[in-house]
Each structure stands twice: as structure tokens, then as C-alpha cells.
């Protein structure tokens, strides 16, 4: 039997957005979104990476799969009923991918996870220049700044960003995520103000028990 994520990966690769969407919506009926993100969509995208390593698909196929995945995520995001109005928390988060970084699917799922928790979210997308991100951050004054990077070449930029963000006067919490957080040892970045988020489960755990710290800090 083919596994869930492999099946989905093939819908992505075939460019079949309808089947991919139906497949995901069916799963959503009796599974939480976190399961879908962490145990189906993420493995599907990693599986696509493996197919490339096995010389079975090309970069162009990967681009197509990414676009379909993006579409599906946007669609389920638009259909989700998030916590609104008075129940919405006053916490704010800004999320973006460092300059030149083109990988963003993970970040998008992170944005949705924040929204699901009732946060106000500004998802700025991948490849955001430093000046631009700082302007937005100064205007929005978020409690959490999430930066994502996949490739090791982004390390110098990431370092600069984290330094800048650490000197912001209202002391936001800085989260580093993306494939880099999984593959490389980023311990040197970690501090009271900077945490490394390995995956969505990790983020969810932070929501469950780590958030109290933020509440105390900011309220």
C-alpha cells in the first residue's frame, strides 16, 4: 500500500490540484491540521526531494509540486475558521523567509499554525530583504519574529538578522525555522530571546507550554 504522503506527493507532481485538494480535505474531516501538516504534507515534500535524489524527477517537477502544494495550502487556509473577534489573542507574529531564500511551504504552514492558535499573523513570504523586514517589524511590533531558511548559504544573512532583531527595544522572541534548523546545528544562535524550531510538532509544543513565558514577558 502506498503511504499517504507518497500518494499526495504524486498528486502534487502530476499537477493535479483538484485531487490533491480533495485528498487533503478528506483527511481534514477527522484529523487535526497539525497531523496533516507534519505527517502528510511535510513528508510528501521531503519525499519529492528524495525522488529528485533518486534521479526520478527534475527541478522543474519540483517547482510544479511546490506550486500545487502552495495552492492547496492557501485554499485550506481560506476555508479554515480561525478564532476571531474577542476570542482572538492580542499576540502578534511576523513570519518571513530570509533574503534569496525561495523555500516557503513550511513557513506557510507555520503561519497557519499561529493563526489556528488565535494569533494575529503577518506572513511576508520568502525572499524578504532586510530593510523591508525591519520596516514591517517596526510598524507591527510583533511578539514573535519567525525567520526561515533552508540552505546553508543563508547563514551569514540569518546571523545579521538575528543580531538586529535582538536589539529591538520591545524584545520580541525570535524563532528560527526551516530545513536549516533541522539539518544544521544552530545552537550558537540560541539564547533567552532566540529559539530554534525544528518542526511543527516542536512549535506546537511551544504553544502548549512555552507560551506562558511570552505572556508574562509582554503583559
Amino acid at each position, binding site marked *: 500500500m502506498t503511504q499517504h504522503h507518497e500518494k499526495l506527493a504524486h498528486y502534487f507532481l502530476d499537477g493535479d490540484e483538484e485531487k490533491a485538494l480533495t485528498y487533503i480535505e478528506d483527511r481534514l474531516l477527522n484529523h487535526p491540521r497539525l497531523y496533516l501538516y507534519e505527517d502528510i504534507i511535510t513528508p510528501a515534500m521531503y519525499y519529492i526531494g528524495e525522488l529528485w*535524489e533518486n*534521479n526520478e524527477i527534475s527541478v522543474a517537477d519540483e517547482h510544479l509540486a511546490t506550486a500545487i502544494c502552495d495552492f492547496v495550502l492557501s485554499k485550506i487556509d481560506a476555508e479554515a475558521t480561525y478564532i476571531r473577534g474577542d476570542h482572538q489573542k492580542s499576540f502578534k507574529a511576523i513570519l518571513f523567509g530570509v533574503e534569496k531564500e525561495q523555500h516557503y511551504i513550511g513557513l506557510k504552514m507555520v503561519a497557519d499554525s499561529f493563526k489556528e492558535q488565535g494569533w494575529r499573523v*503577518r506572513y511576508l513570504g520568502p525572499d524578504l530583504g532586510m530593510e523591508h523586514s525591519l520596516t514591517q517589524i517596526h510598524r507591527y511590533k510583533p511578539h514573535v519574529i519567525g525567520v526561515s531558511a533552508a540552505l546553508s*548559504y543563508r547563514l551569514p544573512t540569518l546571523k545579521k538578522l538575528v543580531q538586529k532583531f535582538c536589539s529591538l527595544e520591545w524584545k520580541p522572541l525570535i524563532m528560527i525555522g526551516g530545513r536549516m534548523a533541522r539539518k544544521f546545528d544552530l545552537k550558537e544562535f540560541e539564547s533567552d530571546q532566540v529559539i530554534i524550531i525544528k518542526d511543527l510538532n516542536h512549535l506546537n509544543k511551544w504553544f502548549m507550554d512555552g507560551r506562558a513565558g511570552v505572556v508574562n514577558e509582554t503583559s
Partner: protein
Amino acid sequence: MKQADRTLPLPFYKINKNFTVQAYSEEAMKLGKIPENLLEIIDDGSVEKVKKWVSSDIYKSVLEIHLKPLEEQADPITADMYVVWNNDLYAEVILMIKDEKLIQVTNRLSQLRSRLNETNFELLEEKEKLEEAIEQNNRLSAPFIELTKDTALVPLFGDLTSDKMQAVEDYLLKASQKEEIDQLLFDFTAVGEINREGIYMLVNLITSLFYMGIEIIITGVRPKQAKMLHELNLPLQVSFIHSLQQAIAKYCT
């Protein structure tokens, strides 16, 4: 390592089993300094792939790989790698950098995506502004007006929704506690649609006010609204008066 005798208009390398470069073509120099070992110019993410597919067990192979970015560039270069083994010891490798067009299409796509994202972002900002306006509007649709020392009037405006009731609840409770209010008139004259959750919230609010020792009078109820109120079993202590005029005449003289 020497420059190959053969003149090929493409980056060409002759390597041994350990990927050590034995010879190269002139074009190969355009991909940066000629490496001692071919793996040096391969992007980290592609090294395993190359090791797997470039091996003397596979006589011929074609694979797509990423090369490390050239000095001034930020992104890895995508290329097709053609490999043929002459014998068990040496292989000939040709690298074909991907067509510019693919890169153009990729860039174009990502531009489109960021434009979409910006539009999305602007929409989100507008939506938040609108939500604030609605919230503001909600807060203003149940003003607390003191008529006399012990009587106040709360004219309700617009549709009775739970969002609206939520927005005014705190304010009304505080306002009625602060003053020496004994009677509170809720005027329904300007109320539009009523929904179930909204009226439910209103009942909660009225009950809370009642526990604070305030007499509640509801005025200006229309027939359709009366039906709904009836279904909801309001606390009995609430009195109803046909019009605001009558209520004022009764309580404010």
C-alpha cells in the same frame, strides 16, 4: 591534472573513482577554479546524489544536480551531468548548465507569487481595519445615557449579534455599577435583525444586571422580536413597556 587535449565547447572533466579530476576542458574554467576533486564544486545537497549515480557500476548516467553558487551569486546553479565510464577507473563527465529559460520562468513564477502575497497582505490589512471599524461600531451601538439620578437608558442600535453584545457587555456592566442606577431601560426601537446567539448574550447581560440589583425594563419591542424573546424564557423580573415614551413617563417623573 591537465587541460584535456580534446576541445569541447562544454565544461568537461575526466575523473577517477574518487572523483579526483584528471583532466578538464577550457570551458570548465568558467565554473570557477578547477577543483582537485569534482565534489568540491557540487552543492552540499547534491553530493549524495552524485555519489550514488556516478559510480563505475553504472556505465552511463544522466542526472540533474546543483553546483555551488559562483562567487557573486546567491543561488546554486542547476545543471545536467552526463557521465560515461571509459573503464572501471576513469569516467568522462560533462556538465550542462540549465537553460536560461528555465531560470527565467522560475524567477517569473516567484515574482508572481510575491505579488500575490503582497495583494493578499494588503487585503489582510484592509480586513483588519474593517474589523476594527466594526468593533468600534459595535461598541457605539449601546450607549449608556443617564436620564435621571437613578434611571438610565440604553438604546440598542442595529442587528443584535453576539459580537456586538460582547463588545458592549463590559462597558454596560461597569457603567451601571458606577452610578446609582436602579432602573435600566433597554430600547429596542432601533434594533434590526436579532439572532439567537445575540439575544442569548443579551439575556446573560440582563441576568447579570439583575443580580446587581437593577430593575430592567425593555421597550419598543416589535412583534417578530417579541416571538423570539418569548422562546428564550427571559428572567421574569424583566418588565416590558410598549414604547420608550411611556417608560420615560413612568420612570422619570
